[in-house]
């Protein structure tokens, strides 16, 4: 009960911060919309993929991209917290590190999900048809993806002490994760080397599942996508918890 209360406290703090920095939501939507409207719109004039307009095909991929960026970059706040020393107050609280990590993780995941939900609703303008099932399943995919990636970001943030170092490290990680995920192209007929990197990228399975749910265009069975995403989430949550144990 004590741990749960601490967890709620940490979550509450993250939500307050998010609410106070509403401009973050606007700026986080800017780049996905640019991708959809300009890149998607431009390519859409010349290409169709598997029977749908390229812009529509691109939508699930960009949805996952936006969650990828906002989730991993959430780790930056841990670096920031360490710098302003707010975190010391949290570390001396009589709470387990698992609780502290989970509170942060839920905060970051909530941020990402709010952004994801706004973007998902914009799918109306990009040829997406919704059903109750597709909306619920899409949010579940975003939740698993963002739980995995927020944990990854927090783990990196816990290990790195400077904001510049965090940015550098994360850009090396985030762009390959985006490009190899198949967010921009179909997974069929890829050359072997590209296939390899695509298969080890967790984002691939989110994009595939999202395409399945919204456009019925998945390559792997949906169950498998969820299973792999869930496994990645568990793995990164455990790794992040370990990194938090080491925090002094």
């Amino acid at each position: 009960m004590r741990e749960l209360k601490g967890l709620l406290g940490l979550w509450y703090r993250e939500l307050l911060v998010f609410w106070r920095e509403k401009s973050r939501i606007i700026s986080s939507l800017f780049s996905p919309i640019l991708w959809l409207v300009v890149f998607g719109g431009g390519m859409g004039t010349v290409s169709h993929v598997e029977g749908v307009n390229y812009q529509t095909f691109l939508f699930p991929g960009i949805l996952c991209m936006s969650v990828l960026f906002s989730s991993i970059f959430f780790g930056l706040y841990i670096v920031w917290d360490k710098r302003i020393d707010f975190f010391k107050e949290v570390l001396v609280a009589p709470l387990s590190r698992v609780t502290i990590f989970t509170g942060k993780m839920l905060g970051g995941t909530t941020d990402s999900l709010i952004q994801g939900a706004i973007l998902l609703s914009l799918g109306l303008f990009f040829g997406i048809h919704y059903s109750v099932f597709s909306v619920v399943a899409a949010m579940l995919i975003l939740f698993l993806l963002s739980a995995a990636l927020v944990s990854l970001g927090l783990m990196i943030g816990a290990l790195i002490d400077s904001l510049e170092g965090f940015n550098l490290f994360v850009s090396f990680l985030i762009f390959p994760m985006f490009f190899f995920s198949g967010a921009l192209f179909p997974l069929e007929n890829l050359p072997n080397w590209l296939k390899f990197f695509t298969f080890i990228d967790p984002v691939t399975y989110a994009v595939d599942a999202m395409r399945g749910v919204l456009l019925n265009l998945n390559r792997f069975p949906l169950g498998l996508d969820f299973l792999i995403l869930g496994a990645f989430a568990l793995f990164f949550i455990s790794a992040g918890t370990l990194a938090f144990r080491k925090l002094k």
Partner: protein
Amino acid sequence: MANPVIEVKDLTKKFNGFTAVDSVNFEVDEGCVFGLLGPNGAGKTTTISMLSTLLRPTSGAAHINGHDVQKDPAAVRRSIGIVFQDPSSDDILTGRENLLLHCLLFDVPNAEIKSRIEWALKLVDLTEWQNTLLKKYSGGMRRRLELARGLLHKPRILFLDEPTLGLDPQARENIWVHIENLVKVEKVSIILTTHYMEEADRLCDRVAIIDHGKIIVSGTPTELKTGIPEPKRPPEVLKATLHDVFLYYTGKQLRESGDTAEGGFMQKVMNFTKKNR
């Protein structure tokens, strides 16, 4: 005779072969203010970090309010309130929200949260400012809020690490008055570290001077002041102050490299922020 609320026995901390704290022994009695004085890098912050369970001692033992810092860190954390050297409140939250967060993190009973926050705000005269974002607080106001926050879970012992560092004389006087009130009214025991001798002289019942990780001398400020030879100065300022005592025992050499010697988290963060300023 009062009971000791802090008992430290042969406490030692080594970082990669460097001994930051070397077999330190002391006791703090209930209701007393104990001052830990020392030059930069002497081991003050490392000692405080071990007592507050942020760092594990290499050897030795410490009991806070009867709880072992190594065996029962959670009980120790519930018994103590800490005001850190650097601001550790969240500047994007209001004063009240910072206090509420602390209540949730430290498991203050739900029914008491509201009244404790009101009480703490009143204690440090910040009731009017409770709904202002911390960004807009002055350095002294932030300190006061952190002082109040440290008391919300009703700890018996308060740790103050350089409580008035970087404050102007008015704000410092104000913090001192608040600390004196806490001891008188709330009956908390306090352990504080400071560089300011007049601060130690005014607030502390006992002080210990620590250098190179060892306690060189300890006693009441009066004992210490009469225990050294009279300073060579004109008669109107003849009497030794705690400042003289400090320099007598620790020497006048500057400790430029002292900071890097301490490997504690707080020190690291402090060095980091300094470098990037």
